[in-house]
């Protein structure tokens, strides 16, 4: 079975610790990495891709150091960076062929694989257009296609659904779900629902540390009894909104319906409800930090 093991992984930049001594063992499945901006997600993914050298600690793939494996590790890897790189004047098909060459695909497979992926991400019709003419969504789809060129055993995606419309996001989620068998897929995103739908395990990262990990059920279980729903009048609703972390707020006539994440019951009439991943995210990233309002 494929394993990826992080041992006390740490990365320091001049005056900042981006990832602080993180340890984790990943086996086959889809992992969703959630965290606020600046939590160290991108730095962690870059170290997992052997792009960035850790200050200390190591990453092991099936027990071998990825730094020592070099090309053999990168051969197993598919990566979509947050800021997707491309040569603006290159045409989409030529771009995929170029990356297929860089990924050392057998020359006789390159044509078929490129066509298959262009069709999969619905870019086959525009394969001969320059990439600089593509919209944000098309660029993202091209990025997903290039990450899957070598049929990677380890797929690392940084913000893969940013810029995709809802239909494209659903399609992407289905692609990843069907692709993930016998592989490790790690995706970092801000879009909680993406993780909720496709991740087998969820990793919550804050200030360079992994503060929580587990299945969706385990993560939400941790905040059971901390999610409340209540209806309040305008002024009272405003006060609640300022005081507590509110995960949802909806106007119902002259009243306001609120979903609140708090360790204490926010008002007498509030009902304790089932938590979801968004509530958990809010809990670990705002309530635990002592910030009331969201």
């Amino acid at each position: 079975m494929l394993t990826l093991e992080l041992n006390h992984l740490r990365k320091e930049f001049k005056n900042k610790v981006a990832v602080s001594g993180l340890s984790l063992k990943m086996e086959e499945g889809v992992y969703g990495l959630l965290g606020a901006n600046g939590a160290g997600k991108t730095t962690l993914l870059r170290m997992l891709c052997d792009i960035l050298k850790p200050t200390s600690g190591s990453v092991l793939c099936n027990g071998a150091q990825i730094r020592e494996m070099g090309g053999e590790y990168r051969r197993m890897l598919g990566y979509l960076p947050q800021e997707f790189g491309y040569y603006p004047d290159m045409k989409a098909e030529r771009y995929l062929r170029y990356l297929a060459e860089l990924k050392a695909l057998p020359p006789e497979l390159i044509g078929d694989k490129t066509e298959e992926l262009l069709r999969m991400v619905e870019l086959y019709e525009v394969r001969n257009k320059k990439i600089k003419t593509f919209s944000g969504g098309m660029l993202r789809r091209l990025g997903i296609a290039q990450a899957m060129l070598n049929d990677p055993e380890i797929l690392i995606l940084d913000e893969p659904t940013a810029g995709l419309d809802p239909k494209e996001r659903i399609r992407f989620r289905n692609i990843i779900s069907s692709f993930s068998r016998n592989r490790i897929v790690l995706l970092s995103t801000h879009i909680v629902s993406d993780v909720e739908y496709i991740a087998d395990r969820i990793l919550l990262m804050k200030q360079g540390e992994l503060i929580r990990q587990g299945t969706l059920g385990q993560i939400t279980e941790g905040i059971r009894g901390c999610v409340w729903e209540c209806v309040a009048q305008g002024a009272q609703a405003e006060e609640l909104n300022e005081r507590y972390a509110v995960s949802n707020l909806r106007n119902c006539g002259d009243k306001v319906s609120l979903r609140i994440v708090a360790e204490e019951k926010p008002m007498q009439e509030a009902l304790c409800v089932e938590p979801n991943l968004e509530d958990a995210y809010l809990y670990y990233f705002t309530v635990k930090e002592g910030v009331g309002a969201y």
Partner: protein
Amino acid sequence: MEKEFAALQKGLLIDGKKRAVALARISKEVREKKIRVTPSLGHRLYVQLHYMEKWYLLFPVLMAAGLLGVVKLLSRQEGWRIELISLLSSGIAFMGIFGAISVSRIFANHMGELEAACFFHVGEIVAVRMILSGLINGVMICVCAFILRGWMREELLKVLVYILTPFLASNCLYFALFLFLREKNMLFVFLAAGAVCACLWLILLCVPWAYEEGMLAAWMLLLLVSVIVFIGEVCLMLGQIREGEMVCSHWN
């Protein structure tokens, strides 16, 4: 053959279950088997040559041809010797920017980060591009030196030193800029640096004794220093690429 097999099979007892298991295993192997290819250095050079923008290789050729044309015209002037060498040195010093631009283009548009996660690593891509650009520039410099030697009736080695030194010294500046600057548009930085270097080497027109016989040792020393600095810069660059921070820097 078929008949022989059929005759042999008559006496065999085939376990249907085991047969199905074996066939399932074979088809699984066929599905999952990955063909692994390790491209040769020749193939890697070919890939870069095939996919890179050809302008970076074509410009030095066009520029060297243009320079030789101008020098040929000026060589008709009686007594012009230092002028010809200075002009050619200045042009060849400028020519070095195309190699630096070709390498810096790898890091533009965040492409370097993506290439760093490929089997054929970004460090290798940089090295291959430098080899290609070095080959073109080297050939052009040799051609220029050979032709100029004929026109000036000078020793080949001497002419080679006079034009190779400005080329390498200027390249040290271009690669230093590449190592320490992260500008939005490196193209303009290199063009400006190229113009400055070209002007600096033209200054030698006002220093005729710089080309006297006795100064050849100084030229060779400068050439040696330039070679050492350039090798140092290349090692530093490849080291920084391996560390990763250079690849992940925001170039634009």
